[in-house]
Protein backbone atom coordinates (compact mmCIF):
# COMPACT_ATOMS: atom_id res chain seq x y z
CA UNK A 1 0.00 0.00 0.00
CA UNK A 2 1.50 3.31 -1.09
CA UNK A 3 1.13 6.65 0.58
CA UNK A 4 1.25 9.80 -1.55
CA UNK A 5 2.26 13.28 -0.53
CA UNK A 6 0.34 16.33 -1.70
CA UNK A 7 3.09 16.98 -4.25
CA UNK A 8 3.13 13.54 -5.81
CA UNK A 9 1.30 14.64 -8.96
CA UNK A 10 3.96 17.26 -9.63
CA UNK A 11 6.84 14.84 -9.33
CA UNK A 12 4.95 12.30 -11.43
CA UNK A 13 4.39 14.86 -14.17
CA UNK A 14 8.12 15.64 -14.12
CA UNK A 15 8.91 11.95 -14.65
CA UNK A 16 10.70 11.70 -11.31
CA UNK A 17 11.99 8.32 -10.23
CA UNK A 18 10.43 7.39 -6.91
CA UNK A 19 11.66 5.59 -3.83
CA UNK A 20 9.49 4.04 -1.14
CA UNK A 21 10.20 5.37 2.34
CA UNK A 22 7.98 4.04 5.10
CA UNK A 23 5.31 3.41 2.47
CA UNK A 24 5.54 6.95 1.07
CA UNK A 25 6.34 7.40 -2.61
CA UNK A 26 9.12 9.97 -2.45
CA UNK A 27 10.75 11.54 -5.53
CA UNK A 28 14.31 10.21 -5.49
CA UNK A 29 15.77 11.71 -8.66
CA UNK A 30 14.31 14.22 -11.13
CA UNK A 31 17.18 14.72 -13.57
CA UNK A 32 20.44 13.39 -12.17
CA UNK A 33 21.98 13.38 -8.70
CA UNK A 34 24.91 15.47 -9.91
CA UNK A 35 22.67 18.08 -11.53
CA UNK A 36 20.48 18.30 -8.47
CA UNK A 37 23.51 18.62 -6.19
CA UNK A 38 24.73 21.56 -8.29
CA UNK A 39 21.30 23.18 -8.03
CA UNK A 40 21.39 22.86 -4.25
CA UNK A 41 24.97 23.98 -3.78
CA UNK A 42 25.01 26.87 -6.24
CA UNK A 43 21.43 28.15 -6.60
CA UNK A 44 18.27 26.86 -4.83
CA UNK A 45 16.61 23.50 -4.91
CA UNK A 46 13.09 22.52 -3.85
CA UNK A 47 12.66 19.22 -2.06
CA UNK A 48 9.38 17.51 -1.21
CA UNK A 49 9.95 16.46 2.40
CA UNK A 50 6.29 15.76 3.10
CA UNK A 51 7.00 12.13 4.06
CA UNK A 52 8.72 13.36 7.23
CA UNK A 53 6.88 13.04 10.52
CA UNK A 54 5.31 16.22 11.95
CA UNK A 55 3.61 16.51 15.32
CA UNK A 56 2.07 19.45 17.14
CA UNK A 57 2.19 19.43 20.94
CA UNK A 58 -0.02 21.99 22.63
CA UNK A 59 -0.75 22.90 26.24
CA UNK A 60 0.56 24.90 29.15
CA UNK A 61 2.71 21.94 30.23
CA UNK A 62 3.86 21.04 26.73
CA UNK A 63 7.42 22.23 27.24
CA UNK A 64 7.77 20.29 30.46
CA UNK A 65 6.65 17.16 28.64
CA UNK A 66 9.11 17.73 25.80
CA UNK A 67 11.95 18.39 28.23
CA UNK A 68 11.26 15.14 30.04
CA UNK A 69 11.00 13.06 26.87
CA UNK A 70 13.54 14.63 24.53
CA UNK A 71 15.80 16.50 26.94
CA UNK A 72 15.38 19.82 25.14
CA UNK A 73 16.27 23.08 26.85
CA UNK A 74 13.97 25.86 27.99
CA UNK A 75 13.07 26.86 24.46
CA UNK A 76 11.99 30.44 23.97
CA UNK A 77 9.47 31.34 21.30
CA UNK A 78 10.86 30.70 17.79
CA UNK A 79 13.77 28.65 19.14
CA UNK A 80 14.52 25.11 18.00
CA UNK A 81 16.72 22.32 19.16
CA UNK A 82 17.60 18.77 18.27
CA UNK A 83 19.33 16.34 20.59
CA UNK A 84 21.18 13.27 19.42
CA UNK A 85 18.77 10.57 18.22
CA UNK A 86 15.86 12.82 19.06
CA UNK A 87 13.46 14.77 16.91
CA UNK A 88 13.86 18.46 16.13
CA UNK A 89 11.65 20.53 18.41
CA UNK A 90 10.61 24.10 17.63
CA UNK A 91 8.71 26.50 19.87
CA UNK A 92 5.94 28.22 17.89
CA UNK A 93 4.30 29.67 20.99
CA UNK A 94 4.99 29.27 24.69
CA UNK A 95 2.34 26.55 24.67
CA UNK A 96 2.65 25.16 21.13
CA UNK A 97 5.53 23.16 19.70
CA UNK A 98 6.32 21.53 16.37
CA UNK A 99 8.19 18.22 16.32
CA UNK A 100 9.92 17.16 13.13
CA UNK A 101 11.30 13.68 12.63
CA UNK A 102 12.17 11.12 10.00
CA UNK A 103 9.51 9.26 8.03
CA UNK A 104 8.00 6.45 10.05
CA UNK A 105 9.00 7.83 13.43
CA UNK A 106 5.72 9.67 13.98
CA UNK A 107 3.69 6.86 15.50
CA UNK A 108 6.39 6.02 18.03
CA UNK A 109 6.79 9.67 19.04
CA UNK A 110 3.03 10.17 19.34
CA UNK A 111 2.75 7.11 21.54
CA UNK A 112 5.49 8.32 23.86
CA UNK A 113 4.04 11.83 23.99
CA UNK A 114 0.51 10.63 24.72
CA UNK A 115 1.74 8.37 27.45
CA UNK A 116 3.65 11.24 28.99
CA UNK A 117 0.71 13.62 28.60
CA UNK A 118 -1.70 11.19 30.25
CA UNK A 119 0.55 11.11 33.31
CA UNK A 120 0.52 14.88 33.56
CA UNK A 121 -1.76 17.13 35.53
CA UNK A 122 -2.93 19.52 32.83
CA UNK A 123 -4.24 19.19 29.30
CA UNK A 124 -1.62 18.55 26.63
CA UNK A 125 -2.84 17.72 23.13
CA UNK A 126 -0.73 15.76 20.68
CA UNK A 127 -1.71 15.95 17.01
CA UNK A 128 0.06 14.07 14.25
CA UNK A 129 -0.13 16.47 11.29
CA UNK A 130 2.01 14.35 8.95
CA UNK A 131 -0.81 13.51 6.58
CA UNK A 132 -2.49 16.89 6.85
CA UNK A 133 0.49 18.98 5.87
CA UNK A 134 3.05 19.42 3.15
CA UNK A 135 6.72 20.08 3.85
CA UNK A 136 8.79 21.85 1.21
CA UNK A 137 12.48 22.44 1.77
CA UNK A 138 14.39 25.16 -0.05
CA UNK A 139 18.12 24.53 0.02
CA UNK A 140 20.89 26.61 -1.46
CA UNK A 141 22.54 30.05 -1.29
CA UNK A 142 19.58 31.73 -3.03
CA UNK A 143 16.91 30.18 -0.80
CA UNK A 144 16.42 33.32 1.31
CA UNK A 145 16.22 35.53 -1.78
CA UNK A 146 13.57 33.26 -3.27
CA UNK A 147 11.57 33.30 -0.05
CA UNK A 148 11.81 37.07 0.14
CA UNK A 149 9.89 37.22 -3.14
CA UNK A 150 6.88 35.54 -1.55
CA UNK A 151 7.19 36.33 2.15
CA UNK A 152 7.56 39.58 4.03
CA UNK A 153 9.82 38.28 6.79
CA UNK A 154 13.38 39.48 7.25
CA UNK A 155 15.59 36.46 6.61
CA UNK A 156 18.81 38.00 7.87
CA UNK A 157 20.50 35.63 10.31
CA UNK A 158 20.40 38.19 13.08
CA UNK A 159 16.61 38.25 12.84
CA UNK A 160 15.90 34.68 11.73
CA UNK A 161 18.84 32.55 12.88
CA UNK A 162 19.58 28.93 12.13
CA UNK A 163 17.44 26.43 14.10
CA UNK A 164 14.52 28.74 14.60
CA UNK A 165 10.90 28.79 13.43
CA UNK A 166 8.42 31.51 12.55
CA UNK A 167 4.85 31.52 11.31
CA UNK A 168 3.96 33.80 8.46
CA UNK A 169 2.21 34.20 5.17
CA UNK A 170 4.08 32.73 2.22
CA UNK A 171 2.48 33.37 -1.16
CA UNK A 172 -0.68 34.24 0.81
CA UNK A 173 -0.83 30.88 2.60
CA UNK A 174 -0.24 30.31 6.31
CA UNK A 175 3.10 28.54 6.73
CA UNK A 176 5.47 27.59 9.50
CA UNK A 177 8.95 28.43 8.29
CA UNK A 178 11.90 26.57 9.78
CA UNK A 179 15.40 27.88 9.25
CA UNK A 180 17.58 24.77 9.48
CA UNK A 181 20.77 24.75 7.46
CA UNK A 182 21.99 21.53 5.88
CA UNK A 183 25.71 20.99 6.45
CA UNK A 184 26.35 24.71 6.20
CA UNK A 185 24.07 25.23 3.20
CA UNK A 186 21.37 27.82 3.80
CA UNK A 187 18.02 26.05 4.00
CA UNK A 188 14.40 26.80 4.93
CA UNK A 189 11.50 24.42 5.32
CA UNK A 190 7.89 25.45 4.76
CA UNK A 191 5.17 23.52 6.53
CA UNK A 192 1.54 24.24 5.71
CA UNK A 193 -1.79 22.56 5.06
CA UNK A 194 -1.74 19.80 2.51
CA UNK A 195 -4.35 21.47 0.32
CA UNK A 196 -2.02 24.34 -0.50
CA UNK A 197 1.01 22.18 -1.22
CA UNK A 198 0.75 22.10 -5.01
CA UNK A 199 -0.06 25.79 -5.26
CA UNK A 200 2.86 26.70 -3.00
CA UNK A 201 5.33 24.52 -4.89
CA UNK A 202 4.27 25.96 -8.25
CA UNK A 203 4.46 29.49 -6.90
CA UNK A 204 7.95 28.90 -5.51
CA UNK A 205 9.12 27.48 -8.82
CA UNK A 206 7.69 30.49 -10.62
CA UNK A 207 9.20 32.95 -8.13
CA UNK A 208 12.47 31.02 -8.26
CA UNK A 209 12.80 31.18 -12.04
CA UNK A 210 15.17 34.14 -11.73
CA UNK A 211 17.43 31.97 -9.57
CA UNK A 212 17.04 28.88 -11.77
CA UNK A 213 15.35 27.10 -8.90
CA UNK A 214 14.64 23.44 -9.64
CA UNK A 215 13.31 20.30 -7.94
CA UNK A 216 15.79 18.17 -6.03
CA UNK A 217 15.22 14.54 -5.08
CA UNK A 218 15.92 12.52 -1.99
CA UNK A 219 19.10 10.98 -3.41
CA UNK A 220 20.81 14.35 -3.80
CA UNK A 221 19.52 15.48 -0.40
CA UNK A 222 21.04 12.41 1.25
CA UNK A 223 24.39 13.30 -0.32
CA UNK A 224 24.12 16.85 1.03
CA UNK A 225 23.70 15.45 4.52
CA UNK A 226 26.97 13.55 4.38
Amino acid at each position, binding site marked *: *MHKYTALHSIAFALNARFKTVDGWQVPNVYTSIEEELKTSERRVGLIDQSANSRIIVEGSNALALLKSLFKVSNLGIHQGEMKRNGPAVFALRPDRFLILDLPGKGAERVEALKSGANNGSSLVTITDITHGSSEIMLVGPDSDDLLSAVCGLDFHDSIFPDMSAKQSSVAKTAQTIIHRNVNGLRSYTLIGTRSYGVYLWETLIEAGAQYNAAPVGLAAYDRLLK
Partner: protein
Amino acid sequence: DGVTARVGENEWYMTTTSGGASRVYSWIQWWLQSGWGDGVHLTQATDGWAAFNLAGPDSRNVLADLLDESQDAEQISSASFPYMHVRELALASIPCRLMRIGFTGELSYEIHCPAGCGMALWEAILKAGEAYGIQPFGVEAQRTLRLEKGHIIVGQDTDALTNPLMADMEWLVKLDKEDFLGQRMLKREAENGVTEKLVGFKMISQEFLPEEGLQIVKRVKRSDAYPLGLKILGWVTSARRSPTLNEIIGLCWLPKEMADSPITTFKIRRAGQLLEAKVHHGPFYDADGGRLKG
Protein backbone atom coordinates in the same frame (compact mmCIF):
# COMPACT_ATOMS: atom_id res chain seq x y z
CA ASP B 1 -24.65 20.63 9.39
CA GLY B 2 -22.36 17.76 10.23
CA VAL B 3 -21.78 14.87 12.55
CA THR B 4 -19.89 14.84 15.83
CA ALA B 5 -18.55 11.54 17.14
CA ARG B 6 -17.12 10.82 20.56
CA VAL B 7 -13.89 8.97 19.81
CA GLY B 8 -12.34 9.00 23.27
CA GLU B 9 -13.04 9.77 26.89
CA ASN B 10 -12.31 13.45 26.31
CA GLU B 11 -12.05 13.59 22.53
CA TRP B 12 -14.64 14.41 19.88
CA TYR B 13 -14.33 14.29 16.12
CA MET B 14 -16.47 16.84 14.37
CA THR B 15 -17.36 16.98 10.69
CA THR B 16 -19.10 19.86 8.99
CA THR B 17 -20.60 20.59 5.62
CA SER B 18 -17.80 21.35 3.18
CA GLY B 19 -18.39 25.05 2.86
CA GLY B 20 -18.86 25.44 6.59
CA ALA B 21 -15.63 24.03 8.01
CA SER B 22 -13.82 27.35 8.42
CA ARG B 23 -16.93 29.05 9.73
CA VAL B 24 -17.58 26.36 12.35
CA TYR B 25 -13.90 26.36 13.35
CA SER B 26 -13.93 30.14 13.77
CA TRP B 27 -17.20 29.95 15.73
CA ILE B 28 -15.82 27.43 18.20
CA GLN B 29 -12.49 29.27 18.45
CA TRP B 30 -14.36 32.50 19.26
CA TRP B 31 -16.06 30.83 22.18
CA LEU B 32 -12.87 29.10 23.36
CA GLN B 33 -11.07 32.41 23.42
CA SER B 34 -14.00 34.14 25.10
CA GLY B 35 -13.73 32.26 28.34
CA TRP B 36 -15.04 28.78 27.56
CA GLY B 37 -11.62 27.47 26.56
CA ASP B 38 -10.31 26.22 29.86
CA GLY B 39 -9.16 22.67 29.37
CA VAL B 40 -10.26 22.49 25.73
CA HIS B 41 -8.07 22.30 22.63
CA LEU B 42 -9.43 22.58 19.12
CA THR B 43 -7.49 21.24 16.16
CA GLN B 44 -8.36 21.79 12.51
CA ALA B 45 -7.97 18.30 11.06
CA THR B 46 -9.54 18.73 7.62
CA ASP B 47 -6.41 18.26 5.55
CA GLY B 48 -5.24 15.25 7.51
CA TRP B 49 -8.05 12.94 6.43
CA ALA B 50 -9.37 11.63 3.15
CA ALA B 51 -13.03 10.66 3.42
CA PHE B 52 -15.37 8.57 1.33
CA ASN B 53 -19.06 7.83 1.48
CA LEU B 54 -19.81 4.18 0.73
CA ALA B 55 -23.56 3.85 0.22
CA GLY B 56 -25.98 1.20 -0.93
CA PRO B 57 -27.47 -2.10 0.24
CA ASP B 58 -24.20 -3.95 -0.53
CA SER B 59 -21.96 -1.51 1.31
CA ARG B 60 -21.62 -3.77 4.35
CA ASN B 61 -20.55 -6.63 2.08
CA VAL B 62 -17.87 -4.44 0.53
CA LEU B 63 -16.60 -3.50 3.98
CA ALA B 64 -16.49 -7.15 4.99
CA ASP B 65 -14.27 -7.90 2.01
CA LEU B 66 -11.90 -5.12 3.04
CA LEU B 67 -11.37 -6.29 6.60
CA ASP B 68 -8.06 -7.93 7.40
CA GLU B 69 -8.19 -11.64 8.20
CA SER B 70 -7.55 -10.89 11.86
CA GLN B 71 -10.74 -8.83 12.12
CA ASP B 72 -14.10 -10.45 12.79
CA ALA B 73 -16.80 -9.52 10.28
CA GLU B 74 -19.23 -9.48 13.20
CA GLN B 75 -17.76 -6.08 14.09
CA ILE B 76 -19.62 -4.53 11.21
CA SER B 77 -22.94 -6.30 11.68
CA SER B 78 -25.92 -4.04 12.22
CA ALA B 79 -26.05 -5.03 15.88
CA SER B 80 -22.37 -4.38 16.51
CA PHE B 81 -22.15 -1.25 14.40
CA PRO B 82 -25.57 0.42 14.53
CA TYR B 83 -26.72 3.57 12.77
CA MET B 84 -25.15 6.79 14.13
CA HIS B 85 -22.13 5.11 15.66
CA VAL B 86 -18.41 5.38 15.03
CA ARG B 87 -15.79 2.63 14.86
CA GLU B 88 -12.08 2.42 14.15
CA LEU B 89 -11.17 -0.46 11.87
CA ALA B 90 -8.45 -1.33 9.40
CA LEU B 91 -9.66 -1.58 5.81
CA ALA B 92 -7.14 -2.98 3.32
CA SER B 93 -4.65 -2.65 6.20
CA ILE B 94 -5.23 1.10 6.34
CA PRO B 95 -6.32 2.49 9.73
CA CYS B 96 -9.77 4.05 9.24
CA ARG B 97 -12.41 5.80 11.23
CA LEU B 98 -15.89 4.78 10.08
CA MET B 99 -19.11 6.57 10.86
CA ARG B 100 -22.35 4.81 10.05
CA ILE B 101 -24.48 7.74 8.98
CA GLY B 102 -26.79 8.24 6.06
CA PHE B 103 -27.23 11.45 4.13
CA THR B 104 -28.22 9.42 1.08
CA GLY B 105 -30.83 7.40 2.94
CA GLU B 106 -29.26 4.06 2.03
CA LEU B 107 -27.16 1.79 4.26
CA SER B 108 -23.99 3.86 4.24
CA TYR B 109 -20.69 4.57 5.89
CA GLU B 110 -18.38 7.53 5.91
CA ILE B 111 -14.86 6.14 5.81
CA HIS B 112 -12.08 8.45 6.95
CA CYS B 113 -8.39 7.56 6.54
CA PRO B 114 -5.07 9.45 6.73
CA ALA B 115 -4.92 11.69 3.68
CA GLY B 116 -1.79 10.13 2.23
CA CYS B 117 -3.53 6.75 2.12
CA GLY B 118 -6.58 8.11 0.33
CA MET B 119 -5.69 6.95 -3.17
CA ALA B 120 -4.76 3.46 -2.00
CA LEU B 121 -8.02 3.10 -0.05
CA TRP B 122 -10.13 4.42 -2.95
CA GLU B 123 -8.59 1.84 -5.25
CA ALA B 124 -9.05 -0.93 -2.68
CA ILE B 125 -12.73 -0.07 -2.18
CA LEU B 126 -13.40 -0.04 -5.92
CA LYS B 127 -11.64 -3.37 -6.32
CA ALA B 128 -13.54 -4.98 -3.43
CA GLY B 129 -16.78 -3.57 -4.80
CA GLU B 130 -16.38 -4.93 -8.32
CA ALA B 131 -18.34 -8.04 -7.42
CA TYR B 132 -21.25 -5.82 -6.34
CA GLY B 133 -21.20 -3.47 -9.32
CA ILE B 134 -19.72 -0.59 -7.38
CA GLN B 135 -19.24 2.75 -9.09
CA PRO B 136 -18.35 6.28 -8.02
CA PHE B 137 -21.25 8.66 -7.51
CA GLY B 138 -21.18 12.42 -7.49
CA VAL B 139 -22.84 15.29 -5.67
CA GLU B 140 -25.85 15.45 -8.01
CA ALA B 141 -26.83 11.83 -7.37
CA GLN B 142 -26.22 12.37 -3.67
CA ARG B 143 -28.51 15.42 -3.65
CA THR B 144 -31.29 13.51 -5.36
CA LEU B 145 -30.95 10.61 -2.93
CA ARG B 146 -31.07 12.85 0.11
CA LEU B 147 -34.11 14.68 -1.23
CA GLU B 148 -35.94 11.39 -1.66
CA LYS B 149 -35.40 10.87 2.06
CA GLY B 150 -36.40 14.41 2.95
CA HIS B 151 -32.93 15.19 4.36
CA ILE B 152 -32.30 18.92 4.41
CA ILE B 153 -29.23 20.85 3.32
CA VAL B 154 -28.47 23.55 5.88
CA GLY B 155 -27.98 26.85 4.13
CA GLN B 156 -30.05 25.76 1.13
CA ASP B 157 -33.29 24.55 2.71
CA THR B 158 -32.71 26.78 5.72
CA ASP B 159 -31.27 30.23 6.30
CA ALA B 160 -30.44 32.63 9.11
CA LEU B 161 -34.15 33.41 9.65
CA THR B 162 -35.21 29.80 10.18
CA ASN B 163 -34.74 27.38 13.06
CA PRO B 164 -35.05 23.62 13.69
CA LEU B 165 -38.64 23.91 14.93
CA MET B 166 -39.70 25.57 11.72
CA ALA B 167 -37.85 22.91 9.74
CA ASP B 168 -39.92 20.20 11.44
CA MET B 169 -36.87 18.92 13.29
CA GLU B 170 -37.92 19.25 16.94
CA TRP B 171 -36.18 15.93 17.59
CA LEU B 172 -32.83 17.70 17.05
CA VAL B 173 -33.27 20.20 19.85
CA LYS B 174 -32.97 19.16 23.48
CA LEU B 175 -34.89 21.97 25.12
CA ASP B 176 -34.64 20.24 28.49
CA LYS B 177 -30.86 20.71 28.66
CA GLU B 178 -29.57 23.08 31.30
CA ASP B 179 -28.61 25.77 28.84
CA PHE B 180 -27.23 26.22 25.33
CA LEU B 181 -26.79 29.00 22.80
CA GLY B 182 -30.16 29.90 21.33
CA GLN B 183 -32.19 28.08 23.97
CA ARG B 184 -34.21 31.15 25.00
CA MET B 185 -35.29 31.88 21.46
CA LEU B 186 -36.19 28.27 20.74
CA LYS B 187 -38.17 27.91 23.97
CA ARG B 188 -40.13 31.02 23.08
CA GLU B 189 -40.78 29.66 19.60
CA ALA B 190 -41.88 26.32 21.04
CA GLU B 191 -44.33 28.09 23.35
CA ASN B 192 -45.72 30.51 20.76
CA GLY B 193 -45.69 28.13 17.84
CA VAL B 194 -44.07 28.63 14.44
CA THR B 195 -45.76 30.51 11.60
CA GLU B 196 -43.92 28.92 8.70
CA LYS B 197 -42.69 25.38 8.10
CA LEU B 198 -40.40 23.48 5.77
CA VAL B 199 -42.34 20.71 4.05
CA GLY B 200 -42.02 18.27 1.18
CA PHE B 201 -43.98 18.57 -2.03
CA LYS B 202 -44.68 16.73 -5.29
CA MET B 203 -45.50 18.36 -8.60
CA ILE B 204 -48.91 17.57 -10.03
CA SER B 205 -47.61 17.74 -13.58
CA GLN B 206 -44.21 16.27 -14.39
CA GLU B 207 -43.61 18.64 -17.29
CA PHE B 208 -41.52 21.30 -15.56
CA LEU B 209 -38.94 21.00 -12.83
CA PRO B 210 -39.30 24.13 -10.68
CA GLU B 211 -36.02 25.92 -10.13
CA GLU B 212 -34.85 26.31 -6.57
CA GLY B 213 -35.77 29.74 -5.27
CA LEU B 214 -39.07 30.06 -7.14
CA GLN B 215 -41.90 31.74 -5.26
CA ILE B 216 -45.04 30.02 -4.02
CA VAL B 217 -48.01 32.34 -4.53
CA LYS B 218 -51.76 32.66 -4.28
CA ARG B 219 -54.08 34.85 -6.30
CA VAL B 220 -55.42 37.97 -4.59
CA LYS B 221 -57.21 41.07 -5.75
CA ARG B 222 -54.92 43.45 -7.59
CA SER B 223 -53.94 46.45 -5.55
CA ASP B 224 -51.00 48.73 -4.91
CA ALA B 225 -49.69 46.13 -2.46
CA TYR B 226 -50.23 43.29 -4.98
CA PRO B 227 -49.84 44.82 -8.47
CA LEU B 228 -49.69 41.36 -10.12
CA GLY B 229 -52.59 40.04 -8.08
CA LEU B 230 -50.29 37.50 -6.48
CA LYS B 231 -49.29 37.18 -2.83
CA ILE B 232 -46.07 35.37 -1.92
CA LEU B 233 -46.62 32.56 0.56
CA GLY B 234 -43.29 30.83 0.47
CA TRP B 235 -40.56 29.50 -1.84
CA VAL B 236 -39.01 26.35 -3.27
CA THR B 237 -35.70 25.41 -1.65
CA SER B 238 -34.94 22.08 -3.33
CA ALA B 239 -36.37 20.23 -6.32
CA ARG B 240 -35.30 17.25 -8.39
CA ARG B 241 -36.72 14.64 -10.73
CA SER B 242 -36.49 11.38 -8.81
CA PRO B 243 -35.72 8.53 -11.23
CA THR B 244 -36.63 6.06 -8.48
CA LEU B 245 -40.09 7.52 -7.89
CA ASN B 246 -40.51 8.78 -11.43
CA GLU B 247 -41.82 12.13 -10.28
CA ILE B 248 -40.68 15.61 -9.35
CA ILE B 249 -40.20 16.11 -5.63
CA GLY B 250 -38.93 18.93 -3.49
CA LEU B 251 -38.86 20.93 -0.28
CA CYS B 252 -40.42 24.32 0.26
CA TRP B 253 -41.44 26.84 2.89
CA LEU B 254 -45.16 27.37 3.47
CA PRO B 255 -47.33 28.99 6.12
CA LYS B 256 -47.81 26.52 8.95
CA GLU B 257 -51.49 25.84 8.35
CA MET B 258 -50.80 24.96 4.72
CA ALA B 259 -47.73 22.87 5.53
CA ASP B 260 -49.54 20.87 8.20
CA SER B 261 -52.41 19.79 5.98
CA PRO B 262 -51.72 16.68 3.87
CA ILE B 263 -54.25 17.76 1.26
CA THR B 264 -52.83 21.21 0.60
CA THR B 265 -52.15 22.14 -2.98
CA PHE B 266 -50.39 25.33 -3.96
CA LYS B 267 -48.99 27.20 -6.93
CA ILE B 268 -45.37 27.84 -7.89
CA ARG B 269 -44.73 30.84 -10.11
CA ARG B 270 -42.39 30.06 -12.98
CA ALA B 271 -41.80 32.26 -16.03
CA GLY B 272 -45.22 33.83 -15.81
CA GLN B 273 -46.99 30.47 -15.33
CA LEU B 274 -48.46 28.99 -12.19
CA LEU B 275 -47.51 25.33 -11.67
CA GLU B 276 -49.45 23.21 -9.24
CA ALA B 277 -47.92 21.13 -6.45
CA LYS B 278 -49.18 19.25 -3.43
CA VAL B 279 -47.81 18.90 0.09
CA HIS B 280 -46.08 15.64 1.00
CA HIS B 281 -45.37 14.67 4.58
CA GLY B 282 -42.36 12.56 5.57
CA PRO B 283 -39.74 10.91 3.36
CA PHE B 284 -40.64 10.25 -0.27
CA TYR B 285 -38.76 6.94 -0.17
CA ASP B 286 -38.12 4.27 2.48
CA ALA B 287 -40.42 6.04 4.90
CA ASP B 288 -39.71 3.67 7.81
CA GLY B 289 -35.95 3.92 7.37
CA GLY B 290 -35.44 0.21 6.93
CA ARG B 291 -32.76 0.63 4.27
CA LEU B 292 -30.93 3.29 6.28
CA LYS B 293 -30.86 1.46 9.60
CA GLY B 294 -30.78 -2.11 8.43
